[in-house]
Each structure stands twice: as structure tokens, then as C-alpha cells.
């Protein structure tokens, strides 16, 4: 295998893994604050369709990205209303949010099915343009991919070095204790869900606006659930999430590579690789990492009245 094709595989791994990385971060924050959000699949779809529609209408992909983020935030606030204010079951509400997203995104995206947009400019990272192998290959990325690096640091800093991050983690471990310590668990959970929505919206925007540059019904193909699995794999840590996202992205790239090499495996069977890989990752680490989970994950905060 030539250097060029290796770079090509890495490049497509990064492209397919980015939306997953943002989504995994969102889910990490949610779960750190004690909320399991199974609805991210629906949030991704609504954000992807809204972002794409706005980008196609306005002709400006960046406005599309902002719209996708806002849509994600709003979707998660709806989820927050269910699980925080109405104290509904988190798993059921998450799945209801997923179905809501299936329907709403189809409605939003319908007029734009088959539309192509220009997408976002892709460029070689300024300092690396001198390396010849890179400049001739597909090693050009959009700004959302580069943005992932500072956002990694930002999330790590927010979660582990700020007062807000401390209160968020305190709520996830024990909401009643956090309340006794003077925090407002409900407010913190709402804030977390909104930030998660923004991140998921960024991921969705990368999927529909920057990478595929199209909209198709159910285009996220389970990324919202794979993100939930990757949270366990990354032990609820934002930096480890990068490894998880690259692993999944690599599975997609591997699948594309096998197809490109003309290996006689049905594309329908290759399609299943990322899901089977995710399942295997869950089986390998699901049991052993349970102790790393926030202590009151999934528990509904009943309040103190």
C-alpha cells in the first residue's frame, strides 16, 4: 500500500469520525451531569437537516452551522423539559426524542433532498503545506475538523478546571449533595443539555454541510447511538473520546478502502462493520468500565421540596 493511500485512509477516517467526536463530547457532558441522552440520534438528524436547509437557502455554510447548533440546543432543551422539569424516565424520553427527530428532520429536509451545496472550503493546515506527500493527497480538511483541537482543550478545561465543571460533575455524582453544597442541579443540567446540543449540532453540521454536502433521510445511520457506546469506551473523558471517534472513523475508512481495492465482499456486509465493531468495543469494555460511570447516572433528581 502506497503512502498516498494510507494518507487517504487516515483522511477519510478523520472525516467520518468528526461528527461522532462532537456527539460523543456532548453525551459525555450529559452523562457527567447524570443524564443519559439516547435522543442524540434525533438531535443529530434535526440539526443536520436544519443546518443543511439554512446553508442551502442562504448560500453561506457558516450560517448553516450556527443554525444546526441552535437546533441542537433547542432539541436538547425539549429533552431537558421532559427529564428535568417533568422528571420523566430518561431512556424512554430519549427514545421519544429520537423518534421526534426522525419525523421532524424528514419534514424539514424534504424540500432539500437531492440538493447539493458548495460545502466548506478545505485547506491544508498552514504549517504542513510544505510537505509534498500531504499537499498532493487528500489531506485537506474543513475548519470544523481543525476546530476540534481547541474544543478538546476547551471541554477538558471546562469540565476539570472550572467551577461550572465541578458543579456539573457534582450533580452527576449526587444531585442532593450538590444541592446541599449550594448548587442548583436543575439549572446545571439544563445548561449541560444546551451545551451538549450545541456540540451535537456542530457534529451534525459537519456531517451534512462539510462532509457529505447533501441531506438524506436517516443519514446519521446510528451515529447518535454509537456515540453513547463510545462514551463508555472513553471512560467519560473528553480526550479519550478522540480515540473512540477515530476507531469508528477508521472502521468506515477501512470499509471504503476494501471497496476501493475491489475485494469481493458485498458492500451490504461491509456496511455492518462499524456497528459490529462498536458492539465488540462495548462487550470488551462495557463490564469493566462500569465503575468509571458517574454515580447517579440515569437517576431522576426529585428536588428537595
Amino acid at each position: 500500500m502506497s503512502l498516498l493511500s494510507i494518507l487517504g485512509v487516515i483522511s477519510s477516517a478523520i472525516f467520518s469520525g468528526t461528527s461522532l467526536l462532537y456527539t460523543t463530547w456532548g453525551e459525555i457532558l450529559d452523562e457527567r451531569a447524570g443524564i443519559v441522552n439516547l435522543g442524540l440520534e434525533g438531535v443529530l438528524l434535526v440539526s443536520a437537516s436544519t443546518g443543511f436547509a439554512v446553508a442551502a437557502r442562504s448560500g453561506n455554510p457558516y450560517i448553516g452551522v450556527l443554525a444546526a447548533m441552535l437546533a441542537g440546543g433547542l432539541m436538547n432543551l425539549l429533552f431537558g423539559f421532559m427529564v428535568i422539569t417533568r422528571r420523566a424516565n430518561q431512556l424512554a424520553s430519549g427514545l421519544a426524542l429520537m423518534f421526534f427527530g426522525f419525523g421532524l428532520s424528514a419534514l424539514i429536509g424534504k424540500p432539500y433532498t437531492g440538493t447539493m451545496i458548495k460545502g466548506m472550503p478545505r485547506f491544508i493546515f498552514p504549517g504542513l503545506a510544505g510537505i509534498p506527500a500531504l499537499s498532493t493527497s487528500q489531506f485537506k480538511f474543513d475548519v470544523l475538523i481543525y476546530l476540534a483541537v481547541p474544543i478538546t482543550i476547551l471541554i477538558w478545561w471546562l469540565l476539570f478546571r472550572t467551577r461550572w465543571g465541578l458543579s456539573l460533575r457534582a450533580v452527576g455524582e449526587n444531585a442532593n449533595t450538590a444541592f446541599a453544597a449550594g448548587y442548583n442541579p436543575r439549572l446545571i443540567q439544563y445548561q449541560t443539555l444546551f451545551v451538549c446540543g450545541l456540540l451535537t449540532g456542530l457534529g451534525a453540521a459537519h456531517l451534512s454541510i462539510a462532509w457529505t454536502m447533501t441531506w438524506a433521510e436517516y443519514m446519521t445511520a446510528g451515529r447518535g447511538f454509537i456515540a453513547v457506546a463510545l462514551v463508555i469506551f472513553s471512560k467519560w473523558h473528553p480526550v479519550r473520546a478522540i480515540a473512540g471517534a477515530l476507531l469508528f472513523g477508521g472502521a468506515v475508512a477501512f470499509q471504503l478502502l476494501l471497496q476501493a481495492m475491489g475485494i469481493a465482499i458485498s458492500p451490504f456486509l461491509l456496511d455492518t462493520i462499524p456497528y459490529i465493531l462498536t458492539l465488540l468495543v462495548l462487550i470488551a469494555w462495557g463490564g469493566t468500565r462500569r465503575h468509571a460511570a458517574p454515580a447517579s447516572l440515569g437517576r431522576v433528581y426529585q428536588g428537595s421540596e
Partner: protein
Amino acid sequence: MSQITSTPSRSSTSVLIAVQVIVRYLFIFLIALVLFGMILVIAGKNPLAAISDTLSFTLGSTFGFSEVIVKMIPLVFTAIAVALPSRVVLINVGAEGQLYMGAWLAAWGALTFTSLPAWALLPLMALLGMIGGSLWALIPAFLRARGLVNETITTLLMNYVAPSIVTFFIYGPWRSRGDALFPQTADFVPAARLPAFFGTRVHFGLILALILLVLYWFIMKYTRWGLEMRAIGGNPQAARRNGIPLTTYIIVIMCLGGAFAGLAGMSEISGIHGRLRPGFSPGFGYMGFLISWLSGGNPIGILIMSFVAALISAGADILQINQGLPYAVVNLLLAITLFVVLAHPTFLKGKKA
């Protein structure tokens, strides 16, 4: 979930409870319909035209009504496939995948044992369908029972694998030589087709589904198994300490759920399509999940909500043509209904004991 299952209060008769249940469902559905209408207005559609189109097609003609019943059959199966595991606090979101694997194994039976008479072939296909679905459910059940992975996420992920396997077989080994345009398996022999009634597409699967529903109600209410399952549902740890085999129940109940979803797949391909097609299910498994949660696992509730969901689903076919709405709006309306149920607004709590 328990908010809408009616708990019998001391004085009221069972008829009164039934009326209460129905009124509650109607009320929930009305709220959902208003919210749904608001979304349609925002989307620039006419909600009143959408509703009147749906109702005049589904309830206004014999054909339309029969189509609602046709759609209801797989939904009853998949709703039980979700409701049964939910009795022992298992969340089975994998009915869609289990349905596909059931259809897959049943289709293998239909394509292999072509010389068998109908009275032998149909039960064999039903059995294969149940085996296919339950084997697919066995994987998440085993992982859950061993305490490795939560079944919610595994069943969800496996939904993305099953249809690909089915499509692989349809494009590969089982592809019919006849038609190149639409990949599908060869037509099943007449003996592999479930009989239909009154010149409509309503097939024998309806009777199977209703028998299953009665059986589900009977087992939950009058048998030791039902009692033990309710005990597990109430407090798994206490149930285990009282000698109820928790692990066995998790595996058996999950596989039974998978078997019923598989039966939905078998009855669809045998009763409706007469062959295996890629993507033959428009999300019956997912809708079954919504129905099960909406009904709180209550058998009458499953029957009512399956009918309503089938009505919406049949209506969505018409709305696709008349109003240019995507079929997926079915999910939107059902999801809003589930939101209303889960948020359990105070005026719906009623006379909860």
C-alpha cells in the same frame, strides 16, 4: 409509564375502568394531535386537510379500513415484543432488527421446502421466524444477563446490522433471476402464503396476533410466570432474593420478545409480500416500541394504540401523495404522543390510586 395504566380503585367496576382508559387515551391523543397540527402549520401545510384526508381514506372506505387492519397486524406483534420484556424492566428497542431476522429465516424456509403442503410449511415458517427473531435477541439478552452491556444500546445498534444482512442475501444468493430492476427473492410457492380474507389484504396473521395478545394478557394476569415477572418488574433484587431465577427470566423473556418480532416479519412476507424484499418494513419495530410505551404494556392499550398507529401509518401513505408530507411524519405524531404521556400533565393523572 405506569401513569396511564389504570390501577383499579376499590369501588369502580371494570367497565368504568375500561371507559376511563379509553377517555384518557383519546385525551392524550387529542393534545398530541393539536401539537402535531401546530408543527404542520409551521411547515406550511394544512393540518385540517391532512386530518380529513387521513380520516376519509382510512375510515371512509372498506378498502382503506382493511388497509389499516393490514398495518395493525405487525404492530400488535412488535408491540408485544417490546411490552413483554418491559415487564421485567428490559428495554427492547431491537424489534426492528428481530423482525428482519425472523423474516430472513422464514424466507429461507419458504425458498427451501417448496414441496411441503401449506399445513406443514406455514407452521414451519412461523417457527423459523420465531427462531430467527429470538436468536437475534439472544445476543443482547446474554450480554445483559452477564452484566456486560445494557440491552438498550445493543438492541439499537443491532437494528442497523439486520437489514444489511437481509439485503445481502437478496442481492446475493437469493436474488431472483427474473427481474433485474427490483432486487427481490423469487416468489414464494402458494403453500408459503398466509391465507387472506374477504378479498382484502387482511391475512391470517391478524388471528395469530389477537391470539398472542390474549395469551399475553392471560399469562401476565393468571399464571405464576406472570406473577414472578411482575415481582421482577417491581423490585429485581427482592425478586432474586425470593428465589426467582432472574438471569433465566432475562434471557427467556428477551428471546420470547424477539420471537414475536420475528413472527411479525414472517407474517409480513408471507401474508403481504409473498417474497423477501429489501427494506420491507417501514419501521414496524420502532412503532411497536412507541405503542408498547404508550399503552404501558396494557393489552387493551396495545390493541387501541396499534389501531391508532396503523391508522396514522395508513394515513401517512395518503398524506405522502396528497400533501407532499414524508412518511416519517408518522414518527413525529407518535413521538409527540409519547412526550405527552411521559410528561404526564397533572390533568391526566385523574383518579390514580
